[in-house]
């Protein structure tokens, strides 16, 4: 049970202040999710076959540089490591699946929070304000970002159990609600080769959507399929390379608000997260309808 925020900037002039706006939105959702917070920011794309991974290790003094060196040697790639609290952003001149494969066999204790070419994912225990400050969210620029504040229901309060959950390149998912058939769905996905990192129901949803996308479904088709296969209550926001998508279950028990101006599109569990965005008083504000897929595409908007 949680708070969700998402911001998608249509006006390039606002991009330097993406993190500052998202940070305010996230902090407004503190009461909905005091246990942990997480963000996914889409910015600074790497080029060609290069990839960017956000990694976490519980040990704040973990020897990241040595790991980066060994990885670079093994993959014959250039590796750059940037530390942010107990996360690092590792930029590698090699595709992410190669990097993930090497990390899994050589350092299975490292958690891969996010991967792709422009998404960075930071998540941690504590109040949203603390998490936002710890990772310097306020200074981040970019095209779009989503965030989550968590009130844990049935799984543990840990960094790994925090949202967003990543299950594909540059894709992540945040969830408010609780699924009622996630155990069966998890077994179904495991049978199809998916590996899980937590017992969280939201991770099941993330991997389910990744599975559908992997089968060739479009983003909208994957979400439509979810309406049939995922039981229970949910408001999902999915971050993608080009934007984000919002979906509420057919009962729509969990809240969601969308707002749009010429400059931005915002999604939040409650209006209070949107209230302080520039021009919010003139925005078109509405509640997403149940069982309807909403998507925004940064390239279409630009």
């Amino acid at each position, binding site marked *: 049970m949680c708070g969700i925020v998402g911001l998608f900037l249509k006006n390039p002039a606002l991009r330097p202040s993406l993190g500052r706006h998202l940070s305010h939105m996230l902090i*407004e959702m503190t009461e909905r999710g005091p246990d942990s917070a997480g963000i996914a920011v889409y910015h600074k794309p790497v080029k060609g076959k290069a990839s960017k991974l956000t990694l976490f290790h519980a040990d704040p003094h973990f020897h990241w540089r040595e790991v980066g060196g060994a990885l670079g040697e093994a993959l014959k790639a250039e590796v750059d490591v940037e530390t942010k609290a107990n996360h690092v952003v590792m930029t590698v001149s090699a595709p992410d699946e190669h990097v993930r494969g090497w990390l899994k066999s050589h350092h299975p204790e490292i958690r891969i929070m996010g991967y792709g070419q422009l998404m960075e994912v930071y998540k941690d225990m504590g109040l949203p304000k603390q998490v936002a400050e710890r990772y310097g969210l306020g200074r981040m620029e970019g095209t779009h970002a989503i965030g989550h504040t968590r009130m844990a229901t049935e799984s543990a309060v840990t960094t790994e159990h925090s949202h967003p959950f990543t299950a594909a390149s540059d894709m992540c998912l945040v969830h408010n609600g609780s699924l009622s058939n996630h155990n069966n769905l998890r077994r179904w996905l495991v049978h199809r080769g998916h590996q899980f990192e937590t017992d969280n129901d939201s991770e099941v949803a993330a991997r389910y959507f990744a599975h559908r996308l992997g089968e060739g479904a479009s983003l909208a088709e994957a979400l439509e399929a979810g309406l049939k296969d995922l039981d229970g209550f949910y408001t999902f926001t999915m971050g993608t390379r080009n934007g984000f998508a919002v979906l509420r279950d057919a009962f*729509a028990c969990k*809240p969601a*608000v969308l707002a749009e101006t010429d400059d931005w599109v915002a999604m939040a569990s*409650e*209006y*209070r*997260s*949107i*209230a*302080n965005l520039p021009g919010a*008083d003139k925005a078109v*504000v*509405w*509640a997403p*309808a*149940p069982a309807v897929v909403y998507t925004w595409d940064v390239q279409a908007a630009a």
Partner: protein
Amino acid sequence: MITVDLDKSSVRDLNERLHRLPPETNEKAWRVVNPKGAHALCAGLTVPIEVTIDGHPGYYCAGMNKEATVVVNGHCGVGLAENMMSGEVRVKGNASDAAGATGRGGLLVIEGDAGLRCGISMKGIDIVVGGSVGHMSAFMAQAGSLVVCGDAGSSLGDSIYEARLYVQGKVDSLGADCVEKKMTPHHLAKLEQLLARAGIKADPKRFRRYGSARRLYNFHVDNVDAY
């Protein structure tokens, strides 16, 4: 006119001041600015004052209202005027889910659209919506009236009891035990009165009326699909 700026004072301060007003108060006109999605604004009012809120309040705005008139120049969050007893709440914009839930009296006017489950379990309140209402509106509605000038979402009036529903536009689908009923001169007059009280211009003759078929009032096995 007394103005309370919620950038400077808390919701608690505002509500406490409003709750302390005696019935015969002279401080009858209030204005609240910068609500910015705050919850429980003007909840539990008991005296005939008029409060105008400029901006968008959060959940449970004017919850359990008695006697007071609350006008919102903005959009409202979940549970607007829930369990209202009397008085009037008017929203110039849209309302989110469960507007007027379990309301027992008074008049709720939403000039824009209302979200899902508008008037759920309503128990005597009159709700007039200038725009459309979402899925499962008037679910288990017991008493009172819901007037929708636009369209109604799916499963309107599911498991309805004695409440009266009037819709001008399209109804996606009717819920269990909800049926279209004849618009009699009596109902037409009632609807006209409601629209007049709400100050919403619409031709009552263009509305259709819906209510309970009363088939679920006592259990019967042949209706089992409806449960």
